[in-house]
């Protein structure tokens, strides 16, 4: 019990990491797209929890709102819409690629883990930078907004144009072709 209290953050981290990775594995392994989508949802929520642990409260809220709320609903809508309930025997994997892909993924993971291993244990930075604006204690959302609108205003505007383009593209792709018009 004392161990749990003393290492509470670590225990929470390990729990959230397990949720994340189990969800990620489920996306790869589960047969039904709906199950994979719900597994992905668990992974998203786990990542949101990890953001909170790393002093990213605003990002955690965005993660839940945009990913778990918006993108997931979009995925589930499309899964229901195209109705691709998998029949029992139908292949879910591109067979010839499986060994290569698993090998590649594992090699990549080993390489990256070696890089992480080589990273020395440096002290973690001062978390007060995440909640203060110009030395004044306000909160994570205000601090992120300060950086976003002061230093990254142009990328912010460019991204908003990108969203507009994506919206128009999605509408054009999603509509029914008119009579005599190629899809």
């Amino acid at each position, binding site marked *: 019990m004392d161990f749990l209290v003393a290492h509470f*953050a670590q225990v929470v*981290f390990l729990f959230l990491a397990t949720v*994340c*990775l189990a969800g*990620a594995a489920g*996306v*790869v392994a589960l047969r039904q*797209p709906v199950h*994979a989508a719900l597994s992905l949802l668990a*992974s*998203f929520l786990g*990542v949101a929890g990890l*953001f909170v*642990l*790393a002093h*990213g409260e*605003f*990002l955690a809220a*965005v993660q839940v709102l945009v990913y778990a709320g*918006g*993108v997931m609903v*979009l*995925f589930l809508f*499309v899964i229901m*819409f*195209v109705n*691709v309930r998998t029949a029992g025997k139908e292949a*879910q*994997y*591109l067979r010839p690629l499986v060994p290569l*892909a*698993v090998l*590649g*993924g594992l090699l*990549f*993971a080993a390489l*990256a*883990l070696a890089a*992480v291993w080589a*990273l020395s244990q*440096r002290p*973690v*930075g*001062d978390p007060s*930078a*995440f909640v203060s604006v110009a030395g004044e204690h306000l909160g994570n959302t205000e601090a*992120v907004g300060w*950086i976003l609108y002061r230093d990254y205003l142009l990328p912010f505007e460019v*991204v908003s144009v*990108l*969203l507009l*383009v*994506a919206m128009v*593209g*999605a509408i*054009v*792709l*999603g509509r*029914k072709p008119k009579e005599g018009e190629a*899809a």
Partner: protein
Amino acid sequence: MIPTSWYLVVSVLMLACGLIGLLVRRNFITVLMSVELILNAANLNFVAFARQLGDLTGQVFPVFVITIAAAEAAIGLGIIVQLARMKGTVALDTVREMRG
């Protein structure tokens, strides 16, 4: 105190999962989900290093990444809807029109 390397390990494993899923899944929708996993792993890295360095910029860039992920999902799912309408399936090995 949680070491930064723990975050990186989770991020790497998530990215590997996404990579494998991206390559081997036959269903277009699950392939898109794998891409979302990869982008999430990148976000996790950003936030972990923001924490390591005490620099808030690492918490601003995930906002852009999330935006791009949303745009990508919208366009990708639009393509899937059209594909399902044209072919009645979203299995990737049935789509070979653009193969030369």
